[in-house]
């Protein structure tokens, strides 16, 4: 029986754990907090699948839409696998207890989402991610009862146990004991979500910080397509964060406009026709950016009854956090960082370039190319978890002796915390967020990116020297260097792609270049960052 260590317990981690356990593996599922706190619960709109071909939709069309939405750099084989498996995935989720909405014929409810030729986004109210998490937590519990899944909370990833290109497990940090321990496994699966902390607060969870990807990068793991960062076109500003107004609002008919000379200009419809409001997210965000003024999303004409029936969470959100009644007033919206198409480079089986190390869900870069379609992230989270589980074999690899390494790392922590220094690590994170927000906006250019890299080099210089702020969780202290290193890799990747494609727009290179229809791979070796272009056959083929 193989032993699998999974880091992260959102939808992807849970799916992988369930799939491994159902194949008889022993799974250790690690996360600081229970799955109910994962960013997965914020996924509102739905999950894409072609369940019904009656209206002319087909799996082939789902594949074409996904490749086109991704601006032709996602791998066709990978996307084909994703879209082909989608119908079974939705049925599987329902069989586990996901409470999908029903249409008048009793079928699973579906709505139109951006960039798709047919309505194929299946939903559970506007809480699809949350309902899926609820179902998966219950299913995982079944395997907990059988002793096949062992959950560990209050535990953070510290680093990989990697030697000569093979992963043997991970170093985990316990906030309770304040020590690092080695947990060995036949395979390690990373399912830690996106890189929100680079930007401070996004539409997502504060828990997703990119540290794991950053740390593994320094341990030899290739990262891919980091420059493709999705700005969701419709968020509302609140005190603490930008909150997502789900694409469901436009899927139900919501219209975007700005005001000019006292008149409403429905600019997306003017530019792209009646379906303009549901163009892919990169296109809508770019148009809002180019509008250069406050843009509004109007749903009032849908009527109170339909709003409360179809998008009640959006109604409640606006009322609570903006004192705005969307049945009577338009919603002032702004684009906000929402999803990371880039991440850990993985092949069709979700293997990284390190043997026995896998990455799944948002932390892996796969399927979405330069821009993700709404409804494809929940699908990819589940699918990737299953694909990785299927590939994991009982390797019975002999284990090197890790005791010296663990002692060394624990000594390092003790030395770092043996200080009365009050240097506020969170301020460095705040400075990083300022740098990243000002350099990786919707539109970038060479000069600002280079200035950003200089700033991050300065922060890295500080981070390497300072002792830990004891009034913060130790995790925030030790994770700083990994997060900064990842941020630098993102900026270097953005600087290396001299074209505009999908979510990556360059002021100095406004056109798409056919010769760059490839993925950006970035590697790390002893402080040196190297980028290269990779064809489909290297990772996604």
């Amino acid at each position, binding site marked *: 029986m193989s032993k699998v260590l999974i880091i992260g317990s959102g939808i992807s981690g849970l799916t992988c754990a369930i799939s491994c356990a159902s194949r008889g593996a022993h799974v250790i599922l690690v996360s600081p*907090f*229970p799955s*109910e*706190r*994962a*960013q997965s*619960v*914020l996924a509102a709109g739905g999950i894409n699948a072609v369940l019904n071909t009656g209206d002319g939709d087909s799996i082939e069309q789902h594949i074409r839409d996904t490749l086109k939405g991704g601006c032709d750099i996602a791998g066709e084989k990978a996307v084909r696998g994703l879209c082909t498996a989608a119908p079974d995935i939705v049925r599987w989720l*329902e*069989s*586990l*207890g*996901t*409470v999908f*909405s*029903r249409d008048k014929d*009793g079928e699973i409810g579906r709505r139109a989402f951006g960039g798709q030729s047919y309505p194929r986004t299946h939903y*559970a*109210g506007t*809480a699809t991610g*949350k*309902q899926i998490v*609820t*179902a998966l937590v*219950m*299913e995982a*519990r*079944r395997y*907990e*009862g059988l002793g096949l899944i062992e*959950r560990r*909370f*209050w535990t953070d990833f510290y680093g990989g146990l990697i030697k000569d290109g093979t992963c043997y497990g991970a170093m985990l940090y316990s*906030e*309770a004991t304040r020590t690092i321990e080695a947990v060995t496994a036949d395979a390690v699966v990373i399912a830690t979500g996106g890189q929100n902390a680079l930007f401070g*607060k996004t539409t997502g*969870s*504060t*828990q997703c910080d990119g540290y794991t990807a950053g740390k593994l990068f320094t341990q030899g793991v290739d990262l891919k397509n980091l420059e493709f960062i999705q700005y969701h076109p419709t968020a509302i500003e*609140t*005190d*603490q*964060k930008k*909150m997502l107004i789900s694409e469901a609002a436009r899927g139900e008919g919501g219209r975007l406009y700005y005001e000019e000379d006292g008149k409403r200009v429905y600019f997306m419809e003017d530019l792209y026709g009646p379906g303009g409001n549901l163009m892919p997210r990169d296109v809508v965000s770019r148009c809002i950016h180019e509008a250069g003024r406050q843009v509004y999303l109007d749903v009032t004409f849908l009527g109170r009854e339909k709003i409360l029936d179809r998008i009640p969470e959006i109604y409640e*959100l606006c009322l*609570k*956090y903006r004192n705005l009644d969307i049945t009577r007033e338009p919603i002032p919206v702004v684009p906000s960082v929402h999803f990371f198409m880039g991440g850990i480079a993985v092949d069709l089986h979700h293997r990284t370039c390190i043997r026995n190390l896998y990455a799944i869900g948002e932390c892996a870069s796969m399927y979405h190319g330069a821009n993700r379609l709404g409804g494809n992230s929940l699908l990819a989270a589940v699918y990737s978890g299953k694909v990785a589980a299927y590939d994991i074999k009982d390797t019975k690899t002999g284990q090197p002796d890790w005791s010296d390494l663990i002692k060394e790392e624990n000594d390092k922590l003790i030395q770092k915390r043996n200080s009365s220094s*009050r240097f*506020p690590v*969170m*301020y460095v994170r*705040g400075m990083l967020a300022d740098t990243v927000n000002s350099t990786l906006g919707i539109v970038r250019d060479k000069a600002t990116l280079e200035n950003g890299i200089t700033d991050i080099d300065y922060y890295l210089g500080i981070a390497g020297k300072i002792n830990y702020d*004891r*009034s*913060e*969780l130790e995790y925030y202290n030790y994770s700083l260097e990994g997060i900064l290193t990842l941020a630098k890799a993102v900026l270097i990747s953005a600087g290396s792609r001299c074209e505009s494609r999908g979510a990556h727009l360059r002021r100095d290179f406004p056109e798409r270049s056919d010769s760059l229809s490839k993925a950006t791979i970035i590697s790390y070796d002893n402080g040196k960052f190297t980028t290269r272009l990779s064809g489909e056959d290297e990772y996604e083929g």
Partner: protein
Amino acid sequence: MKVRILRQSGPYGKPYWQTFNYDGDSNASVAAILDNINYSDDIVDSEGNPTDRISWECSCLQGMCGACAMVINGVPRLACDTFAKDLKGDVITIEPLKKFPVISDLVVDRGIIQENLKKVDAHIGEYHQEEERDHELEYQIGRCLKCGLCLEACPNYVKGNNFFGPLFANDSYFVASRSRDNGDQIKKDYKKHFAKGCSKSLACTKVCPMNIPTLASMAKMNRGF
């Protein structure tokens, strides 16, 4: 405005009260106020004494994950879902949930929620495909955050006893209505770990941030639906 917080430096530390000044936006959520105190400047209490940053748990900051459950002015609530303008008086009092062991300041260990559900092996197993079902109630139960606010408010819930509290009544209905092979067992567990202990104060329904109709779950389970 003053913010009075019951603090504790670690699981074995002695609890103590500390007061902070807050002069930011009066429309802010309690979560925003905690962030403001922690990171606007070097953190000092209302007497000007330097102190440690306040530990509290957060993830979504918009009432969808349940991380920031705490007791605010005596009422169990989510910090990100509670606004200063809706609170009476010039002092906001914040305490950790009392029914769970404190890890640090306002962070508590709610692991007992998962442990209890694991004890009774609450899962669906073989799915019961049934068109005639209370879809709306199931959807509402599916939104449960497992935040622990209902357990905090419940006069019958005490850590370590046999009564698993309101969230278990909801999960019981969820399993019983959807499972073909685990329904009878969960009905027995419901009687043992909920029905016998509930005095129907309904305090749980008043504090649930998702407004889950626990009474409806109880009615269904008690009737055997």
